């Protein structure tokens, strides 16, 4: 049932009824510092619950032992309460309009049968992945490392669609809107834009399949924009409208939200916030520990496998170094095969703790152009976390 519309209806009958309606659905008392709360949404496996309305669901780390993150475990992040819960493919159309000669209305079947299919393996990462690690803490989705996933996306390049629509001279930006709707007329619809050159670079695509299956509804069924190497905020879900614009796009979600300090690695001083900001854009370089997981117990005197993933915005991971003594000494890990420049790359290292006790493990990735992870980082929005990864484990 659509709670937003339910509330709107019930709300008309007065605040008392509204309060009663909330009580009716409250099943769990609010535990403010409870451990990870697992939840199961439709078409999804058990995931870490951040929020239920709209849903924000985090992937448990163990799923990153697989190169491709299973659809049912892929993270979920919506902005507006009115998320799509039903799509009729007989009537659904992707509308292409604006500064074009031939506006298009395309069904999913049209996309599947009248355009050349393309596939790419690419990481999608939320701008605020790992936000909960920033100090001082910042408001927002309190993700750990699971607001990211790597999938094979299959669909149609935006370039081929725009070519079919015949973009007029003088196009500047292309905006992308989905089926989600704001809960109130005063709330801005979630629409994002790319420059015309970016949209037409041949890599930006519209996916109708994720790991060779339809997308789960909460991951953007039936179509999702794929912007390789760029943060997830641009990967518009349930994509329904593409509009070519002869001027720069402007709305709340671009002008005020999803902005980073105009400084190296988007970093600023909590006591002296940056004056200038720019829209968030490409991924920086980062790694994630997959095994062991934080606070896990390992065995002394025998080899333990350390494993993780690393990625950047498309230059490729050249090196991942690992430290097992809190950063005093470093050694190269073994890199797994490259699955594509926008995929993450697996790394492994073998480690034999000599003694029992506590160890701090660290991982530091470097990409093909020598960029590496930061040693310190902060910004007011908690975006782009890429501090050198570290986890504490006990050897027994």
């Amino acid at each position, binding site marked *: *049932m*659509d*709670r937003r*519309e*339910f509330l709107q*209806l019930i709300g008309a009958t007065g*605040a008392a009824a*509204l*309060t009663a309606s*909330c*009580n009716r*659905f*409250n*099943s*769990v*008392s*609010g*535990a*403010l510092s409870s451990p990870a709360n697992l*939840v*199961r*949404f*439709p078409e999804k496996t058990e995931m870490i*619950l*951040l*929020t*239920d*309305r*709209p*849903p924000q669901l985090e992937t448990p780390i163990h799923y990153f032992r697989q190169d491709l993150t299973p659809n049912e475990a892929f993270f979920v992040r919506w902005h507006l*309460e009115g*998320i*799509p*819960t*039903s*799509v*009729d*493919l*007989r*009537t*659904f159309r992707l509308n292409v309009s604006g500064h074009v000669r031939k506006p298009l209305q395309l069904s999913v079947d049209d996309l599947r049968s009248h355009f050349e299919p393309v596939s790419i393996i690419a990481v999608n990462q939320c701008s605020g992945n790992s936000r909960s690690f920033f100090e001082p*803490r910042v*408001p927002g*989705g*309190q993700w750990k490392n699971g607001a990211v996933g790597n999938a094979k996306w299959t669909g149609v390049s935006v370039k081929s669609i725009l070519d079919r629509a015949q973009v007029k001279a003088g196009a500047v930006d292309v905006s992308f809107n989905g*089926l989600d*709707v*704001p*809960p*109130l007329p*005063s*709330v*801005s619809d979630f629409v994002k834009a790319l420059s015309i050159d970016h949209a037409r670079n041949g890599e930006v695509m519209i996916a109708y399949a994720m790991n060779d299956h*339809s997308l789960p*509804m*909460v991951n953007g*069924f*039936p179509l999702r924009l794929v912007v390789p190497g760029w943060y997830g905020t641009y990967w518009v879900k349930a994509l329904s409208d593409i509009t070519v614009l002869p001027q720069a796009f402007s709305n*709340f979600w671009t002008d*005020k939200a999803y902005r980073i300090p105009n400084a190296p690695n988007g970093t600023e001083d909590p006591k002296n916030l940056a004056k200038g900001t720019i829209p968030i854009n490409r991924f920086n370089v980062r790694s994630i520990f997959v095994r062991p997981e934080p606070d896990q117990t390992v065995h002394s005197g025998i080899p333990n496998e350390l494993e993780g993933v690393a990625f950047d915005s498309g230059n490729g991971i050249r090196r991942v170094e690992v430290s097992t003594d809190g950063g005093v000494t470093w050694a190269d890990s073994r890199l797994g095969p490259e699955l594509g420049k926008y995929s993450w790359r697996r790394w492994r290292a073998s480690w034999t703790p000599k003694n029992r006790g506590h160890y701090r493990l660290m991982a530091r990735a470097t990409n093909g152009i020598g960029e590496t992870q930061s040693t310190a980082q902060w910004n007011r929005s908690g975006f782009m976390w890429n501090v050198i990864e570290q986890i504490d484990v006990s050897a027994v």
Partner: protein
Amino acid sequence: MRNKTARLFQTAAIFALGVGGGTKLNLTPQLKRDASQATQVVHQRVDNESVHTITLPHDEPLFGPGPGREEFITACVVCHSPRYITMQPRFPRSTWLSEVKKMKDVYGAHISDEQAAKITDYLVSINGKADAGNAPRGTYGE
């Protein structure tokens, strides 16, 4: 088409709720028609996979009484789950106040200044901590 289908389901749910709860709903002819169509949609979903529908679970925390609770329920929970509060670390009043102002001035929530102050009181009472400066320590149970 999504909105329409969602509306049909919602109408059906309201209908079922009314009946199940023993409440007499005064259905207009339009609502009756919608409810009847909603039944057809359910059947279509079974018969024709071109209509893809999910039902979202609701798993929202319940907060106890406190000053500002009514304002919180009315102004905040209409747009999002209270989990947006519970997933945050404890913040001082200044942070919660700026969050409420952000919702009002930037996101478009309908909140008067008076309501904003009450909502902030409530947020601090359920997930606050003392300000480094002037916040009354201990009042809000850090």
